[in-house]
């Protein structure tokens, strides 16, 4: 119990750091892939620090409270996850957080934001089945929805749940807002309809959004790591390796694909989820 609280606290304290570093490393790797030097590793941190110091502006004054709620719920999602509680619970808090982001986008009711908000909803619809099914996969393989019990089994989850993992990595591209699925907003200079959901975020609100994104990315990587980690010592380096490989893969996908239309994103992610996770589900159910 004590350990659980400590790890949740560690997440709350360290996730922004890790998230910022991850973002910085991602940008560096991207730059290197394109033959550029790229920004410093701490660039994302610099950006947020600057954004926090600027004049507080907003299109709708109501946006910032929704974004704060989004941020706090995102922190709660990760804290629940890393404290080893029920994984479905944290997924549901995650979806509520996503709804708050949607509200914060739509409340400005500007043309770009309205389009982006609709696309954000489509993204949620596209990725949600795979995330829920991943939880089901854990449950089938480990016999529990509790994260700490899943993490302390004797075998590597991935052996039982390769299909769930494939589907999860597929929709991770959507969740991490990487090309080809960055239809609602992107990290690149080649913008999607200006800046998608972040269009009307003034400097300070954008900082809140970025911090929430750091928390989210760490949580997502944690979830990817959950596919490997188990009670053996060797699983820890293996988990680190898998997380890094997944992260690298996402950047590679990001740099080697052009943005898709949302129809294709939606269709593809559902198809992949149904095929990979669905077949895996069927097999796991049969051998149980």
């Amino acid at each position, binding site marked *: 119990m004590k350990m659980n609280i400590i790890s949740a606290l560690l997440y709350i304290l360290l996730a922004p750091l890790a998230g910022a570093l991850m973002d910085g490393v991602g940008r560096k790797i991207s730059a290197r892939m394109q033959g550029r030097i790229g920004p410093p590793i701490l660039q994302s941190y610099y950006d947020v620090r600057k954004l926090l110091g600027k004049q507080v502006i*907003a*299109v709708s004054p109501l946006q910032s409270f929704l974004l704060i709620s989004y941020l706090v719920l995102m922190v709660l999602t990760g804290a629940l996850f890393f404290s080893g509680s029920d994984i479905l619970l944290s997924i549901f808090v995650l979806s509520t957080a996503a709804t708050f982001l949607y509200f914060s986008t739509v409340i400005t009711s500007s043309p770009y934001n309205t389009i982006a908000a609709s696309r954000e909803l489509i993204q949620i619809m596209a990725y949600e089945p795979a995330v829920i099914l991943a939880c089901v996969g854990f449950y089938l393989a480990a016999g529990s929805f509790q994260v700490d019990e899943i993490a302390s089994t004797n075998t590597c989850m991935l052996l039982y749940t390769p299909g769930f993992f494939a589907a999860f990595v597929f929709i991770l591209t959507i969740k991490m807002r990487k090309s080809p699925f960055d239809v609602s907003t992107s990290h690149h200079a080649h913008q999607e309809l200006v800046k998608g959901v972040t269009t009307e975020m003034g400097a300070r609100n954008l900082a809140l959004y970025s911090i929430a994104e750091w928390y989210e990315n760490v949580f997502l990587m944690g979830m990817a790591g959950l596919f490997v980690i188990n009670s053996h010592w060797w699983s820890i380096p293996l988990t680190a390796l898998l997380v890094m490989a997944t992260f690298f893969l996402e950047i590679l996908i990001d740099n080697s694909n052009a943005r898709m239309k949302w129809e294709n994103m939606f269709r593809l992610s559902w198809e992949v989820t149904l095929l990979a996770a669905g077949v895996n589900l069927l097999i796991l159910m049969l051998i*149980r």
Partner: protein
Amino acid sequence: MAVVIFLICFPLVMALASYLVRDDRTRNLLARAGVAVIMAAVLWLVFIWISGGRQVINCYYDTEAADHIILAVEVVLMFIITGLCCRHRKYWISLLSIVPTLLIAWFELEGPETERISHIQIDHLSILMCLIIAFIGGFIIIYSGGYMTHYHQHHVRIKPRKNYFFAMLFIFLGAMFGFVLSSSLLWIDLFWEITSVCSFMLIGYTRDEEAIYNSFRALWMNLLGGTALAVGIVYYGYFAHTVSLDTLVAEGMHGGEFTTIPIALIAFAAMTKAAQLPFSTWLLGAMVAPTPSSALLHSATMVKAGIYILFRLAPAIGGTRTGMLVSLIGGFTFFVTSIMAIGQDDGKKILACSTVSNLGLMVACAGIGKAETIWAGVMLMIFHAISKSLLFQAVGATENAIGSRNVENMHGLMYRIPMLAMFIFIGIAGMFLAPFGMLISKWAALKASVDSGNVVMVLFIAFGSATTSFYWSKWMGKLISRSHVSGSRHEDITLPDERLSLYVHAFLMIAVCLLLPVISRLFVNPLLLELFGQYKVVLPLEVLILLELIIIFVFAVPMAAYRYSKRVKTNVKLSYMSGINMGDNNSFVDSFGASRKLWLSNYYFSDKFDPDRLMVYGQIMAMALMIVLLCLIVGGILA
């Protein structure tokens, strides 16, 4: 147990009274008083039941006279239906009433002697239903008092028949009480027919062409179910010499003789009542009626009757082919109708699709027939009843205020009529957001389907909940966005009795959500014990407590954040429109240099998720599924 008889008969008296009273004010007062009496009676019933140690109460064993009255009423109903069908030249529909009535009459008069059974049974499930009917249904009647006043101001062409409307609402309540308290299948059949006819009358209230068409569709679909029910009852009574629902379920649990066919037929009937595919169209068509009747049909009565009977049957159908049929159809309906809701922009249609969809989930839970799934199903039923009723009433009041129930016209409702928008917001949040009960129940349903090894169901839930959150968030977004309507305020013309009902519902919504662990422990677990003889803890206490914390968190955080952000000095800028705003966020410079107004709209994907086409496909698929599985069931018996 006179209170039971009172509950069944008093609404009928009230119906007669409100039919005779011509003055609106007097009738509204009368209705309020009547509803209060009904609620008090239900509370009294609950009190008796609790003071009796919450045991199952069986009573009214010898009811020769009542049986004859019931048969007589059934024959009268047959004549009414036949008369109506003849007047509208839908002769064939009357067959669906004549055949079962004659069958039942033959069975009662000429059929074999049946076992002596109790006719009234009071247990957890029927108490729960009574509470839902009395309180949700009761407040809907109170709400109608205010609603109908405005309704007829807006719809001047429709001849007001408010006395008739109220009479029907009261009969409906009475029939529902009878339905959930009876344990004799013959009594159940009568109340079943009454609700079918009542809903037919309510749907046809406006008497225009569409209403008549839809009401007859509702009638034949429900009568078809009623026919299946009657055949099932007579079959079982003829061979097993008893018409007790309890015996049927108890025998069915052990795979008793002669139980498969009646259970399958009753389950079929329940699915028509619960508007499952391919019979969903009647509930979607029921939207032509005034809102209170839709609210009543969707949340407290009619469709819940189907769910109720399936929950009763659940222990007997779990793991059988009938159970497979029921759960597959339910899951399929859940998924398809939730996609269908994406393409709708009419508020009431979205509500209707979502009702069918949620009913599908409950039906599927019943079909799997494990204690865990019934836990989820019962929870779904409670939460769905409250939030759907709230939503219908709020949308109805909004329609009266802004003259439209189209979601697009609710743009910025939060700034125009904050109170109503708040109610819609709470209602929708209750339907899918994290701290509220629906999501928790869905979670339990998911867990239970995994446990019972139902792959298809898991997939349906995973994909269906994604589409569900899509159409709900879309609507919520519409409420809170401003721009092209900013400044145009609407007068809130909601009347006090409408307001009362809305407040009570919103309060109930949040209270039930907070009391979830208590309800689960004190009520739902004993309910499962009664139905199954055992229960498994679905959500352990730690999780429930954690859940409570999250609930408080999700409420507290936005509030605290709101208070905080109000203090921060914010410089408000124009929204980004590539620098061509015309001084505000509502218009921009077009290519002719002229000002053009901005108009924002949601995505509906009518080309991709065309609801009508989906409905046809869904019906065909569901029909095929049903035929295949019915063949399997029949084949299983013959083999």
